[in-house]
């Protein structure tokens, strides 16, 4: 069929039929035979998406005015329903979702080439999907985040958007958030990784160090405690079979490094005592997960390679050292106590990582990193053990 013919046919319908037909058309284009010129197909799909799905362009390809809020909602519900339809390929696990749907998701919400409003659309869609247990969308999103990198702009924007427009408006005890690790473990794990990069991170050249909202902290603690293996999900998920043929799976990043950083920074930055208790719980959950989670998983799957939970080079960032020095200089008993806590957590985390054999880097570098820190009995003990 000629490309124009497809468009002309679709133009005969109005919303919602036009969108529905367009989605079906896109599906057959993307998952159709590959003998055709692939890039042409993709162009057509992109055109159809912007004209008939998101209504960003008109017949001539010119931008149109943004759709109404009602229409916006109707469209989201329609996409949700589309993904919730009986699976095209049966018997998938709950991790990777459906290959065909993943491909469509990637085309609907690509990294590049889509107008910025589409990002808003994505955040709304994921919020809706979490609330309505539309697991296939979440699974596709989880894959897309991993493929593009959990600390990529795409994933960060999504994570940040979810926090600002969704998490802050609901309670951490909300059942849909509770069940998220069961329903979409890869998405949950990757979301944690993205979230972990958003806070206590000076990379973004912020003036001050940002701490996460309490609800985010609460929900992450709850997630990790619910399943010690959850943080490893991205590592052991076989993405290849979830991706369209020809796509190369990207390496997994785990939330450990970022979340451990939260725990190291918190005693020195966070003033709220109630929040500090939560960081203590998070730290405990993390080292438990590092030691126990991987042990449990590896016992069941001996052939999966070992992941890294900490890296020697980034475990003690310069910024943390600066904060510690500052605290010691102040000679304030409270601040000194906080330094103790930080050193204690550092030692415990590194120990956990060593015990589970998931630390990246060489011994000597690690020892010199640790020796640059103030003296502490546990650190000494740890260094002694590393050198053994």
């Amino acid at each position, binding site marked *: 069929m000629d490309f124009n013919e497809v468009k002309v046919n679709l133009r005969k319908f109005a919303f919602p039929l036009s969108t529905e037909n367009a989605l079906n058309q896109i599906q057959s284009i993307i998952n159709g035979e590959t003998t055709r010129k692939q890039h042409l197909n993709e162009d057509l799909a992109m055109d159809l998406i912007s004209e008939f799905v998101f209504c960003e362009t008109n017949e001539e390809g010119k931008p149109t005015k943004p759709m109404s809020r009602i229409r916006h909602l109707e469209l989201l519900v329609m996409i949700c329903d589309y993904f919730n339809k009986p699976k095209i390929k049966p018997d998938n696990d709950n991790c990777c979702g459906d290959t065909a749907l993943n491909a469509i998701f990637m085309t609907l919400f690509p990294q590049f080439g889509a107008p910025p409003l589409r990002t808003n659309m994505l955040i709304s869609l994921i919020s809706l999907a979490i609330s309505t247990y539309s697991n296939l969308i979440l699974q596709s999103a989880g894959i897309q985040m991993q493929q593009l990198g959990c600390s990529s702009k795409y994933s960060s924007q999504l994570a940040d958007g979810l926090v600002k427009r969704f998490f802050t408006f609901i309670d951490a005890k909300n059942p849909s958030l509770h069940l998220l690790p069961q329903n979409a473990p890869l998405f949950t794990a990757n979301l944690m990784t993205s979230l972990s990069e958003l806070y206590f991170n000076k990379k973004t050249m912020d003036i001050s160090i940002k701490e996460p909202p309490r609800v985010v902290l609460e929900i992450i603690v709850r997630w990790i405690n619910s399943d010690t293996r959850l943080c490893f999900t991205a590592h052991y998920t076989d993405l290849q079979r979830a991706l369209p043929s020809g796509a190369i799976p990207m390496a997994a990043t785990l939330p450990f490094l970022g979340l451990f950083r939260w725990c190291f920074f918190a005693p020195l930055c966070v003033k709220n005592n109630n929040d500090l*208790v939560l960081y*203590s*719980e998070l*730290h*405990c959950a993390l*080292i*438990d997960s590092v*030691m*126990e989670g991987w042990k449990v998983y590896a016992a069941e799957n001996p052939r999966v390679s070992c992941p890294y939970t900490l890296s020697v080079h980034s475990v003690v960032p310069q910024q943390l050292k600066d904060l510690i020095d500052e605290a010691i200089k102040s000679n304030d008993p409270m601040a*000194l106590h906080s*330094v*103790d*806590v930080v050193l*204690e*957590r550092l*030692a*415990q985390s590194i*120990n*956990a990582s060593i*015990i589970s054999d998931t630390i990246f880097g060489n011994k000597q570098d690690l020892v010199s990193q640790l020796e640059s820190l*103030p*003296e*502490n*009995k*546990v650190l000494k*003990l740890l260094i002694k*053990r590393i050198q053994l």
Partner: protein
Amino acid sequence: MESMDISVSEEEHMMAKARSFLETDCFRSRAWLLTAKSMFPDNFGIHFESYEIEKNLRCVQRAARCFSGLLEDFPNEAILWKEIENFTPILCMDTFCLSEEQTFYREMFSALPLSIQQKLLSVCAERSEDTMEHCRLVLLLLNRFPQSSTELALKLMDTMITAEKHNQCPNVINCYRKILVCDLGPLLVSTNTLNQKNLYKMLTKTTEFYITYAMGGHSIIIENLPETENYIKTPWEDLFASCERIGKKLSWELRYVLSQSDKRKAWKKVSSFAKKFVIASNNSELSKQLVFCGMILFVKHVFEYNQSLQPENDSEYLLVKAIKGPKVQINKPPLKQAVLSIATKLNESVIGITDESSEVLDHFKMAFNYWELLTNKEPMCTDYWKLSAQIKVDTFIGQFLNDIEFYQGKYKNLFKVVPSQESIRRSLSLVNLYYCVQEFKKCAENIFEVVHQTKSFILNGKLSMEIANPPEEREMYYIQIAKLPVLQYCVKIMIQILYSQLSNFPTDNDLIGHLLVLSQMVWPEGSEIAEDMYERIVKMPLFTYPQFSAYITNIDIIEAFMEIFESNDKCVLNIYPCVGPSLNSRISTRGTGKGIKEDFRSAVKTQVQQYSEPIEETMLLFFMNEKKSLMKSATLMEKSLTY
């Protein structure tokens, strides 16, 4: 910054850290524990302490994880086993009487991996020296892991049976049997572990247990068991369910009759099964099936029979001989009862009941049917006696057997089973039995005993046609033990005695008068007696019965006397002591006679007013006042029979 003593070991230092934060920040404390455990994986002290800390924090999941880690890494530590001994008994206890700590242990056990649960239970069961505890642990093991071991289950069955013997339990209702029957039984049967021989063994043990329990009356407390388990709420239903379960394994066709709610249908099924298969084939398996099911149903009916014979809050019943009459030829010596010829077959019309509202008769008939089926024909007969001896059925069906003997006319045997305690039941039984063996003097003595006791009786009951005028074929009936029927029954016997005396002394004024009084209690059938008396009276020149005004309340009788007085000049009625010289009326002039007539009429008028007085009160008065004269008649009657 570091205030810890350097000489303290690294382990100690870490544990001290962990302990120091327990109060302020339990997660910090836990992080230390995790670290210490990972650094010193071989140090039992650290691992056990972190388990204890989680235990004290009442954190079920974490404690369970610590505990399974301990079991895996330090399986031989004595302290660990001490801890296991602490909580295994709790697993056998009831959930709702547990302390907080015990509940925690229970939850923690459930949170352990299944393989560890199973291992723990079997090791603990093996180690346990107390039979009850051992058995509870094995039960728990079998319940949670039905596939675990059939051998274990069979061994437990033997253990329980031996324990019962070794502990010399005097009673079938003991804790070992209860567990064997109620807990282990269903489990063993459901898992296909029992062969046929063992199935029968279990069935016998089960039947014996439940029957003994049910027949022993409600709420027997089984000793040495916790309060929630020491009684059985629905022994019959439980017995039926158990038998159905075992019957299913033995592929019994009859197993459903037990729980059948329609008793008659069940009986039909059983009896046709007997006729069609058992008697014809003489198959021992089929016979066993029939005898088991039949015997259970039989005992159940006897149970219901006993219940309706002497219910807790309702009127009781007693099987007594029907009193025919009044004109009955009393044979001498007493005949062996005609009933004997039909003794093994139930003739439905031979037995009646004075009060249709009770089911006692139905229960008797049903029990009789089964009794007859089980004890009269081979091959069931042999099997029944064998089983009955094993389960000691006879000890529960005494009353029923006595009543069967009564039905068969073996009265002499029954004197020794009359209740020894002073009661209306005892007196009435004696009245009945002495009447049956025609010892009228003793019979009458006991009638006065009964009358004496009825005075304080609250339950009135109703006068019964069955007593007043039993159908011709009736030989016996169930009498409701209540004031009216019992009195009526005594009256009926008394009438018979007096009537037969009347044939020796046809003009005895007292006999005639007494009979008139008694006839009121069996009215309107009594009118026949009254008519006979009127006839006798009018033929006499003088009829003296001064008690007339005291005992006669029946309007028909008073009217009849009025008529005799008015129309008959030949007979002088000397019945009102107040009506002056009535004796002289015949020789007096008409004028003076007129005055007497007036007096007589006014006396009758006064008496008519007594008409509404309850008959039983009059009878009681009569029996009390006339005891001497009535006893005389009874004694004479007995003498006349012996000569």
